[in-house]
């Protein structure tokens, strides 16, 4: 009986996290667009617009390029599946998600890499010049963000003696001093740059551009339509939400549920929404005042993040 209750609790947690992150991710896109519009003196679309867009796209016809193979169809599915996997098992609403012992930070990095690789391959599968350009650029940026991310993860893991993600969050809860340690702050800076690059925000990529030569992410998904485009949108917004969720929970863990009770989960969801919303508004505000960097200036930014992460590792070694 307890087994069953345990299983039920775990399923509830996964369901809550998935709903919160997926729906929240789409709303997050709306919030960011609304923030930008308002700051630029426009009214902007309603916050729920991305949600409506996805619903509309789901009922449209699927058109796929005749030159593409099954990889084109599979790409968005893999993207969504990897994002959902991390959203379901990561410490987002509660610090004790199911399979919490096996939610390893390095594993999360590689699982998200699988999503990026799938999308890049799907883009190359269309055989069009723009998609190839997008894939090439996205992989180049990915090749430079991945090291920054890995060293930042290592900088967090060294003082905590583990790379287990829920354990890292719980450590911040039980010992707030850890969060203010220099190693963690350096890692935070690296993380912020990495997340901006990974989710294609300014100054790395402009999510609202469709100018042919400056697109990165948009160029990759040009050929998608209907339900496939809906999946790409959901996958990307879920990634944005979960990366921001992990960021805020690692550096501002307060408010996260520590158990699996329904009330706790409700409060945890509210706290997550508030924290991630604040982070998203901050990013959107920053975007208003920033111009996109030239592609070949990006390595400097990303190398900076890498060095910060590495400094974080060194600091964590020295200061302990």
């Amino acid at each position, binding site marked *: 009986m307890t087994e069953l209750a345990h299983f039920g609790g775990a399923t509830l947690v996964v369901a809550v996290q998935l709903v919160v992150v997926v729906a929240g991710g789409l709303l997050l896109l709306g919030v960011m667009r609304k923030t930008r519009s308002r700051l630029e003196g426009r009214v902007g679309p309603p916050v729920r617009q991305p949600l409506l867009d996805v619903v509309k796209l789901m009922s449209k016809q699927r058109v796929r390029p005749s030159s593409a193979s099954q990889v084109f169809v599979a790409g968005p599915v893999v993207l969504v599946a990897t994002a959902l996997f991390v959203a379901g098992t990561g410490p987002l609403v509660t610090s004790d998600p199911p399979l919490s012992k096996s939610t390893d930070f390095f*594993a999360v990095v590689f699982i998200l890499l699988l999503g990026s690789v799938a999308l890049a391959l799907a883009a190359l599968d269309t055989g069009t010049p723009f998609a190839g350009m997008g894939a090439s650029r996205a992989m180049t940026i990915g090749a430079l963000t991945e090291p920054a991310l890995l060293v930042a993860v290592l900088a967090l893991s060294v003082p905590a003696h583990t790379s287990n993600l829920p354990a890292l969050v719980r450590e911040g809860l039980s010992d707030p001093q850890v969060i203010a340690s220099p190693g963690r702050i350096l890692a935070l800076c690296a993380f912020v740059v990495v997340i901006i690059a990974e989710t294609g925000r300014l100054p790395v990529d402009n999510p609202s551009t469709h100018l042919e030569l400056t697109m990165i992410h948009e160029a990759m998904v040009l*050929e998608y339509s209907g339900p496939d485009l809906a999946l790409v949108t959901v996958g990307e917004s879920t990634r944005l939400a979960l990366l921001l969720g992990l960021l805020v929970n690692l550096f501002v863990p307060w408010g996260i549920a520590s158990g699996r009770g329904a009330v706790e989960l409700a409060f945890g969801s509210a706290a997550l929404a508030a924290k991630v919303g604040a982070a998203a508004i901050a990013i959107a505000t920053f975007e208003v005042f920033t111009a996109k960097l030239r592609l070949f200036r990006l390595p400097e930014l990303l190398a900076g993040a890498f060095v910060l992460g590495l400094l974080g590792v060194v600091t964590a070694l020295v200061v302990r």
Partner: protein
Amino acid sequence: MNGSVLVVELALGVVAAAAGGLCPEGMRLRLAAGLTIAACAVAAAAAAVVLGTGHGVAVHSAGILPLTGASLDLAPPSSVFVATTAVVAIAACVYWPGYARHDLSSRTVSAVIPAFVTSMLVVVEAGDAVTFLVAWELMAASSLVLVLAEQQRREQTRSAAQWYAVMTSAGAGAIVLAMVLVCAHVGTVSFDAIAAVAARPGDAGRLPGGTRDVVLVLALLGFGSKAGMVPVHVWLPKAHPEAPSPASALMSGAMVNLGIYGLVLVADRLVGGAPSWWWTAVVAFGAVSALYGALQASAASDLKRLLAYSTTDNMGLVLVAVGLSGLLATAHEQAVAILALVAALLLVVNHAAFKGCLFLSVGSIQVATGTRDLDSLGGLARRMPVTALLFGVGALSVAAVPPLNGFVGEWLLFESLLHALEASGAVVGVVVTVAVAALALTGGLSATAFVKAIGIGLLGRPRSTGAATAHEVSRSMQIGAGLLAVACVVLGMAPMLVVPSLERAAASLVGGGRPQVLSGGVDIAVAGMEGVLAPLWIAVGLALLGAGTVAARSVVRQRRPASRAADAWACGRELQTARMQYTATSFAEPLERVFDDVLRPDHDLAVSHTAESRYFVDRVVYHSAVADVVERVLYRPAIEAVRWWGSRARMLQNGSVHRYLSYALVALLVVLVVLA
């Protein structure tokens, strides 16, 4: 089980080589391949038993080699390498008859492949220095013949073989010298006896410091060259692409590992533990190799060259892990040292599986399309789906994405780095931090390289008629590559099938220490750390969520018009051709620019004008290539210097008999003066 199993394996190998050399055309290939598979199966079974029980088997025969005899000794550490070699060789031999139909069924090749495989097995099983060196030389010679097998088809094969011959002979020379120094000091050639002397407490019988350092440096150069370590890697990106694909798979999946085996053999057993500076050098060379290999792989547009550089990259990672393990052992952190060595062995096993699979499937692609140049491939996922799938599995394994085996290896490597950082003093801390930086950079680069390999090579539209008319290859080729692809998937989802054996092997090398990698059913856990890695659950979870996503996508199908295929939109461009696609060169161009200083690509732009007016361009020729910088900076000047001396020395010989007689007279006088 006793030592006779090793004799059976050796005999099977010899008979296979003889059958390949002597039997008539129709049957020799199948006979040789079949007997080699049998030899490898015996070897793999013996290795599995040794790893399972922890007890080695040995056999000595005074008759085979003069003076010292030959001895074979299969212990747990060498069993890991024997099993890996045997599995790759089985896959290559299953593949070989299908590939040979297109070429490569000559008497020489049929005799040499079994000899190559057997000599690799004997290198690892050798129980004394003489057996080891004889097998090593046989391995070098037979692989050289294989590199030359297709020399009549391509011009550059001969030059590649020359490079390989020089590098492998020089490496073998260094190894012979190192072994002779050790054996001369101890007075025996048996590895066990040498190890017993080296492990004796106190300084009695140990190598004097200076000699030991010379031995270690020679070993690092000789074995490092075999493992593709930068800067002695130059043969690898030349010889791997030029060899026929089954031979490339054997070289990259099995032979390079023996360099790692040799390093561990010399450092841990023969000299009784290397000093920390040497291990630091191993880590440093490994980190440089990993980075350099990954960069070159992401810039390469020849598919096999890309794989060859990726081998340098992966062996670099192994060197980092091995060096780290040695460094930690000298700092008396036995437990973490074992963990790092387990990571190294797992990387070796994984690399053998995915690189073997990749080379075999590239061989299939080359047979089907007639080219291995990425810029003229494309669209193969539709023309030859099975081969494309196998290549994809291998390539995604290298890119370290779950749920494939490369991911587990990288994870364990990062966990051992994490452990090492905690356990470390100042020296280890600095070394590990540098290693971390190199490894982190390598990961993203190799993912880019293999996205390029899949995306340009297999997807999109065909870029040449060869690719457009390709047909799926024969069943035996698919099975050969498929065996290793299955290994990639199985090792990725259930690494605990092999990790305990690797741990036993690592513990017997390092000595002492508690078990570090713990098994929780299908999970991997590292001792003293919270949390585990559950690769099987990741695979299951991803599969379930993927299925759910597909279901969700088709939920509202009723209301929706049926899907259709149309011309790609491409921002409204009509009449698109395959030539408008991105190529491997253009895909790699941004990275090439970012790492301009290291790669130093050559760009050559020639614009010719029409005769009537120079304002009208007639044709534009653009040429871009990325050469090996190390070769250009380090080796070319040396070659030029040797050439110059050679041409100078020619002046001594003018064909005049009188002059030669006077040389003899002068030489005689000099000898007399010196003796007097």
